Every structure is written in structure tokens, then in C-alpha cells.
């Protein structure tokens, strides 16, 4: 670390204190959920005393031990949560791939065009993002049923890509702006077409920004509820709507602990992913992915 960024002891204490407080705030609810997912519902959602979820009073009376894997067993084995996990995997991979393919092409063009219409294009993309997704999705239902598109994974993937396209375009456009124009323009002087220049000069240097944008697309597809719940049939359901279906309805009780176990299960792969991609996220952003 360079001298300029070294801190005085007091600043250090303040900074660490603040950071420590934030880390507790950020992680506490999740750690609490993780711990509680091994209890029975009566404990985790105890209306009598919150300490029950620490000590598992009812868990002991109902199951004999102070921890139980019933929630996980119920969700994964009984309710076949793995099918939803598989669907989520397919959706995420496709959404990220298609999103980035379209987004890099479009983002690159937008960053290189000096005409006003490029600005208007970006502006409209932004205004499209302002549309509440609920209204969009309810508008899709009739035509999708009519044309037999409803319920399939592929339809949902395309819709998620489209809804996410404005964000992807803005982010990648800003990123490409930071790649010097001379690079591809000199390639074109050497006789490359625009596409060849893109392929041979830009693609090799664009990965940090693309990975960062891809992670945001991934998170969107992974955590989406509004689109997946309305457009997927039961057997194609992804994890989030499946999880919400554990919560029950007005007239019947659900299996809330299945949902809690599912939340932990959903978040676990993200751990791995963030740890794995953490360097790339930061370096991608550093390369200028988000210069307004």
C-alpha cells in the first residue's frame, strides 16, 4: 500500500468501527436464517420468544434433537427442489450468454457512434427500463397463450434478456467508451471491416467489463420473481417462484421452513460465485464499466 493511503490510528479505528458495524448489519440476517433453517417453524418464527430460535425449544420437543434437517429434506427431496434448481441453471446460463452477446454488440456500437441518434437510442432504452415490470408481464400473458409460447423456459429467457437489455447496454456502452478509439480505428485503417476490428481488437480486451455486466445479468435472472412466476408453468418453475409457493395461501398453511431452507440453498451457490468472481467484478468495474 502506498504512503498516501496509509491511515492515522484514529481514522483507522473509526473506519474499522463503521465497517464492522456494516458487516454485522449485512451478514446478521443471513446468519440468523442459516441457523434457523435447522429448527422447526415454531422456533424460527416463534411468537412466544425470539430466543427459541437460538435454543430450539420446540425443535427438541418435536424432533428430539436441537437441529433438524427436515426443512432441507422437505424442500429438496419431497418437493423436488432440484428440478427448480436445474431450471434456474438453464435460465441463468442462457440469459447471461444472450444478454452479453446482444449487449456487447450494441454497447460497442453506441460507444463508437457520434451521431445524435445513438444518444436517443440510449435515452429510449433508459425510459424502457422505467416501465414497471408488472405491467409488462401482464401484457405478455394473452399473446403468449394465444401463440402457444407461454410456460416454456425459452420464452422466459428471451423476456428476461429483453427486460435486462437497457441496463446491460448502458453499462457496456460506458465500458467501451473507456477502450481507446485508436485501437479499433487503426485496425480499420489496416483494412479490417468494422466487425473484424471488433472481433480481433476489441473482444480480447473487453472481458473484465463483460464479466461484471454478466454478473449483474446473472443476479437478475437468478433472483427474478415477477417474470418467472407469471410466465413459467409448474414443471418449468425456477427456484424463486418454487420457494414462494412453499409459503402457502390465505386459506391454507404452507411449509415455511421449506422456504427458509430453500433460501439458504439458493444463496449458497452465490457464495461460491462471488468468491470466484470477486476479483473480476472489481477489475471489470475498474476498467470503467460504469463511468456515467
Amino acid at each position, binding site marked *: 500500500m502506498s504512503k498516501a493511503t496509509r491511515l492515522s490510528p484514529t481514522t483507522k479505528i473509526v473506519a474499522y468501527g463503521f465497517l464492522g458495524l456494516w458487516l454485522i448489519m449485512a451478514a446478521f440476517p443471513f446468519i440468523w436464517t442459516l441457523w434457523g433453517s435447522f429448527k422447526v417453524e415454531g422456533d424460527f418464527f416463534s411468537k412466544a420468544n425470539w430466543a427459541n430460535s437460538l435454543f430450539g425449544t420446540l425443535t427438541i420437543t418435536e424432533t428430539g434433537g436441537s437441529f433438524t434437517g427436515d426443512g432441507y429434506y422437505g424442500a429438496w427431496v419431497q418437493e423436488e427442489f432440484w428440478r427448480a434448481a436445474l431450471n434456474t441453471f438453464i435460465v441463468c446460463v442462457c440469459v447471461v450468454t444472450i444478454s452479453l452477446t*446482444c449487449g456487447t454488440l450494441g454497447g460497442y456500437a453506441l460507444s463508437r457512434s457520434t451521431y445524435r441518434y445513438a444518444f436517443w437510442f440510449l435515452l429510449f432504452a433508459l425510459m424502457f427500463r422505467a416501465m414497471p415490470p408488472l*405491467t409488462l408481464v401482464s401484457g405478455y400473458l394473452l399473446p403468449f397463450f394465444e401463440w402457444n409460447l407461454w410456460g416454456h423456459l425459452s420464452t422466459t429467457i428471451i423476456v428476461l434478456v429483453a427486460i435486462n437489455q437497457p441496463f446491460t447496454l448502458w453499462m457496456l456502452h460506458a465500458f467501451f467508451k473507456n477502450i481507446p478509439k485508436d485501437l479499433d480505428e487503426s485496425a480499420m485503417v489496416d483494412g479490417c471491416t468494422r466487425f473484424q476490428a471488433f472481433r480481433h481488437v476489441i473482444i480480447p480486451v473487453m472481458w473484465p467489463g463483460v464479466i461484471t455486466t454478466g454478473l449483474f445479468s446473472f443476479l437478475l435472472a437468478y433472483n427474478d420473481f415477477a417474470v418467472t412466476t407469471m410466465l413459467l408453468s409448474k414443471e418449468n418453475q425456477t427456484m424463486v417462484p418454487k420457494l414462494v409457493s412453499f409459503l402457502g395461501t390465505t386459506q391454507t398453511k404452507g411449509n415455511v421452513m421449506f422456504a427458509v431452507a430453500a433460501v439458504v440453498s439458493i444463496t449458497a451457490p452465490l457464495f461460491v460465485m462471488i468468491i470466484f468472481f470477486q476479483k473480476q467484478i472489481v477489475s471489470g*468495474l475498474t476498467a470503467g464499466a460504469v463511468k456515467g
Partner: protein
Amino acid sequence: MKHSSFFWFVLPSALLMLTFIAFPIVSVVTQSLYQEHEQVIIEVENCGPFGCTVSESVDQEATAALREAQPLGQWAGLEIYKDRNHLAFAEVGEAWTSSVSMRDFAGTLMNLPFYDAIAFTLTYTAIVTPLTIIFGFLIAIGVNAVARAMRGPTIFLSLLPMIVTPIVGALVLFWMVDARGVLGAGLQWLADDPNLSVKASTPLMWIMLMVYGIWSSAPFAFIVYYAGLQTVNTDTLEAAMIDGATRWQRIRYVVIPHLVPLTTFIALIQLMDNFRVFEPIVSFSAQAHARSLSFAIFNDLGGETRLLSSAAATSVLTIIGVAILLSPVLVRTWRDFGKAR
């Protein structure tokens, strides 16, 4: 870039957005200008397991003819926008003339669903957006000061609020702030008031929604700023230090100006997302205390009889609201584009 290559490059994105966003927006705008045709109501006898009752019903044959003639419904123009559940021109006008004081007028206005929703939405946006940015910035500064080996786990933990599935994340939090949940009990202890309940009071519910909003979006601002901090020119910082600048002055005159472009981007996305606030209201069952524009849309679409035109009108008003809100940022981008030419 040539027009033709620009065209081919943006074509896939443009097609996707045209089909799945632009076209639906056109149909939503159209929908908001129509209302359903007159329904011919008749009295019928309904029988079932619980006996027979006389009830109203729609005369299908009489209505079918009307439907055939006007498949879109009847032209309503801006009537839906002007009705009591939206801009309520008539009601507002009347309140204006009959109110004895501004306070009285404001009270009547807040009793109208649209103005009630816009009041919450704007307050939420105005408070959550800057605080998210400030928090994100402070966390980024903090993480940047941590020893390199510790940064990985710190970044991961800081990102948690953003990556946990919002619906159930909010459900768990909602239970935790219950008067008998761990956070609720903690708050009671802090406030030294055993009857304190976040869920029972409107101001506390607003505060909780906003705290949740900041908590869940601060990681986004954090990660963007953190990346930005990596590119601050250390030479400039050192030069500033040699010139005798204090730490605060270095942040103020070197770091912050460097981060301004990032702030524009975060502000743009956050303003838009906060203006469309919806999920926390559902997850926290907060609709008795706080309603937003997006919640109004959800309410229109979620009932047994769906109010498509009403939802469409509210959606259009939301887009207009976002456009107004973002206009300062957009003007800036427009100028930047001018420079790039």
C-alpha cells in the same frame, strides 16, 4: 461509425427491446385510453351447495354484441387519467375551492389514492437515493482501508444484502422486526419501551421500509465506488499530501471529483429503482401504512376483477414521473454526447 454498421450492431438489442418493451408500452398506452364497454346487468338466481340466492350478473348475449363492435372497449380518452383513482382532477378542484386552509387541502389530497402513493414514492426516493450513495461510499472507503488479505471476505459479506433473494430476505427481516422477533426486542430494549412495535405505527413502518431500501441497495453503490477507488491516481494523492493537504482535504479534492461520473450512474439507476419501489411493501405487509405507485399497479392487477386500464394509466404516469426525475441527469449525458462529437 457508419450508419449501416451501427444498424447491424444494435439490431439484436433493438429488436429485443422493440418486441418485448416498446411494443408492450404502445399497447399499454393504448389500453389506458380505453375503458370496457357497457355491461348489461341482469338479475339472476344462483344456486349451489348453500342454497339459492338472487344476484346480479352480466347479460352475456347483450354484452357480446357490444364487444364484437368494439374489441378494444369504448374510447375513454384521458378519462381514466382524470378519474378519482388517478389524477382526480374533479376531486382536487373541489378540495381547492372548499378547503379552508392549506392543511385542510393537503389532508383531502392525501386521502386520494394517487397523491397518497406519490407522496410516499417521492419521500422514499428522496431519502433512500442519497443515503444509499453516501453509505456505499463510506463502505467502499472502509473496505479500501482493510488489509488486502481480508478484503475478499469483507467484499463478500458486504454484497450479501444485494444477492439474497429479496422476497424471502424481506420475509425473514419482517419477522425479525416483529415486536417479539430479535430485532424488534432489541429496538424495544434500545428505546426502553416494551410496547414499541414497528408494524403498528406508520412513521416507524416508513422508516423501516427506507432502512430496508438503503440496506439492500448500498452494496450496489459500494461495489461501484470500490472499483472506482482502485483507479484513483496515487501520484496525485501523494502530491497533495506533500503540499500539506489533510486526509479530509485529499478525499474532498482528489477522491470525490474522481468518483463523480460513477455517482451519476448510481444515481440514475437508484432513482429509477427507488421510484418503482414495490417488493418491500408486499413483503412487509406495509400497505396499511405505505403505498407506492408500483403497489397501486399490483393492486389493480391482483384483484379478482383485473383493472387493466387503470394499471396501464398508472404505469404511464410512472414512466412520466421517472422521466421528470431523471431529466437533470439526462441533460448532463446529452451535453457529454455533444462533447464527444
